[in-house]
């Protein structure tokens, strides 16, 4: 007996609908966007102010992933499958960014106040993040403070790796481990990254705090997610940025519920707004409609200008 034998016409198996949005996320097609090429060839610092929609989206995706990962770490026992998939996504994005040079560009941009060598080394580490290196040392639990006061490079490193350290309890996934940087590190700052026990980590946090306070803006809120800072340069988050992301901090629990599906607090979220404005689900008519997408992109540019502070 044929089970599926309706009189009504059946839905044909749907083909692939690669819409505009997908294209933007497809690796092979990103060069479609003319601005991308221009910026890449012109290696000016201005290129850090991303006007390419592809890299902008990629950055939003990265930011979103980092927030998700961050929330995973706060759970005692997160959904391992989910965290691994998100971590792999982050890794993939960062690999691609390193590959196509946008990582380097932002580094050049950021290198004004901080040791460039350190950043280059960090990139190198990101590239071979999957290799087994020197013995990993325990890194303090990624507490909120811990992350916010870390060097952005370190934060990236910890976040881009699957930060689920198998501690003695064998189950506590909130911890993360960090590689020993000593081998490759020759900047003066490397010493503080070496030791791994808790006391040193505390010291390290203090150091970082001092260091960041010596910089323009000691307020850590804007730096919660390391990549934001990389993107925005070493001048520290400006007031617009701070305003945007201070909400992230304050509404931490909102964020949590939001990520678990309740989106009522969406307006608070900087990066999410960014994606919302891009997302076909929120702007249904924009699917397959380049003109609408263009306006979306303009909007994005605008948001990005606020973030970058230009």
């Amino acid at each position, binding site marked *: *007996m*044929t*089970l*599926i*034998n*309706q*009189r*009504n016409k*059946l*839905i044909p*198996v*749907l083909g*692939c*609908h*690669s819409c505009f*949005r*997908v294209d933007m*996320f*497809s*690796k*092979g097609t990103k060069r479609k966007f003319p601005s991308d090429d221009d910026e890449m060839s012109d290696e000016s610092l201005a290129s850090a102010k991303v006007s390419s929609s592809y890299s902008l*989206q*990629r950055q939003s*995706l990265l930011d*979103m992933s980092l927030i*998700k990962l961050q929330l995973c770490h706060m759970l*005692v*026992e997160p959904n*391992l*499958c*989910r965290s*691994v*998939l998100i971590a792999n*996504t982050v890794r*993939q*994005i960062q690999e691609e960014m390193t590959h196509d040079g946008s990582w380097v560009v932002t580094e050049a941009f950021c290198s004004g106040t901080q040791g460039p060598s350190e950043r280059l080394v960090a990139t190198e580490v990101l590239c071979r993040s*999957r290799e*087994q290196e020197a013995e*990993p040392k325990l890194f303090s639990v990624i507490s909120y403070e811990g992350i916010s006061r870390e060097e952005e490079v370190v934060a990236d490193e910890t976040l881009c*790796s*699957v*930060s*689920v*350290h*198998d501690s003695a*309890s*064998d*189950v*506590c996934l909130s911890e993360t*481990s960090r*590689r020993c940087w000593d081998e490759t590190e020759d900047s003066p700052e490397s010493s503080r990254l070496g030791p791994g026990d808790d006391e040193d980590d505390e010291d390290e946090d203090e150091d970082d705090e001092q260091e960041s306070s010596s910089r323009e803006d000691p307020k850590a809120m804007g730096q919660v997610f390391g990549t934001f800072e990389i993107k925005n340069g070493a001048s520290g988050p400006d007031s617009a940025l701070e305003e945007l992301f201070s909400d992230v901090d304050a509404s931490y629990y909102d964020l949590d519920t939001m990520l678990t*599906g309740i*989106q009522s607090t969406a307006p608070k979220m900087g990066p*999410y707004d960014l*994606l919302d404005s*891009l*997302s*076909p689900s929120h702007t*249904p008519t924009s*699917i397959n409609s380049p003109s609408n997408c263009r306006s979306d992109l303009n909007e994005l540019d605008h948001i990005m200008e606020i973030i970058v502070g230009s």
Partner: protein
Amino acid sequence: MLSVPSHTALYMDEEIDTRTINSSFLRDHSYATEADIISTVEFNSTGELLATGDKGGRVVVFQREQESKNQPHRRGEYNVYSTFQSHEPEFDYLKSLEIEEKINKIRWLPQQNAAYFLLSTNDKTVKLWKISERDKRPEGYNLKYEDGRVRDPTTITALRVPVLRPMDLMVEATSRRVFSNAHTYHINSISVNSDNETYMSTDDLRINLWNLEITNRSFNIVDLKPANMEELTEVITAAEFHPNQCNTFIYSSSKGSIRLCDMRAAALCDNHCKFFEEPEDPVNRSFFSEIISSISDVKFSHSGRYLMTRDYLTVKVWDLNMENKPLETYQVHDYLRSKLCSLYENDCIFDKFECVWNGTDSVLMTGSYNNFFRMFDRNTKRDVTLEASRENSKPRAILKPRKVCVGGKRRKDEISMDSLDFGKKILHTAWHPSENIIAVAATNNLYIFQDKVN
């Protein structure tokens, strides 16, 4: 806790083929709580019983009614047979974490006597339950009264023979074995072996093999845990024994591959003997490629010849003899491909949809969003989208096929893609082992649909 199931069913339109859908709202709550959300559905090997587990740790077993001649349309409705609390919320004081009571999986053991046995599991602990009937009780003991009090021996002057007297049917669920302390991560699958003596339990990184009689010892047969958890890039998502080769099992991974292992080869099956994986299509490559290729469920066909896997957008059928690509690929909801970013944002992309075979391995069924579920006929290559909802399908009415409008103009009977409710998802379904009866869990409702009797 469970409201009394309301059984109402409507006849199906005779003109539409042989397919009558007889739907019953078996578990319906006007005030559904999180605990009422159904988390697993499973028929036993004869199809006479259907078990559901929920987030509140309860197991509800339904039994199929005997057919009666004067009410042929009431053929085979399922009624509540037994309800019991399988798992309770626990707290691990050493690790300072709560262990949810949510039932992740239920598996029936083949029936060997009048009683029924099932395994149920939450994140950490597997339990073996016995469900048995009692309709007689012994009366007339010499040494005690009927209420259990012991008789004073000096008052016993004569001996009598105890007799069994009929009483109201009572269904008892008793916990027979508790298999605990073997899983560090969350158990996602359990599977009873065809030898009827062993079963395996699978968490994110390890698979353990148990004897059904022995609770204090299990054997680790797969261990994916890297020495350094930082290097972890892949987890186990599901595992199952072969239906008739007791040495063979499969497990699927978050990278979209399936490994087949032979326990005769080695005690630790870290080295697979078959590896099923489809190369990625570069056309559809995106940052979400890996996430959507993560396998949420894997099932052997009843024959043992094929495998079915479910990933986020498709169902695939694999021939055990062909590892490099699936035999068949069916699109479940390909229109979502353009929405992956939003689905990632709201975490729907991590939903774990399950999939099932029909009794003859010719039709596949799996769930989708908006209370939709999909069926694929492997022979005719036709597919249908149906909806499990109270509003849109009256009991004992034929289910109308649904269509989702993708771009362009929406026709009258189509549902716009933007009006799909991603909160209503059908993750768990079950198919009767020999008949065309299906059970579909939609949040806190269980729907049972069946073919029409001619």
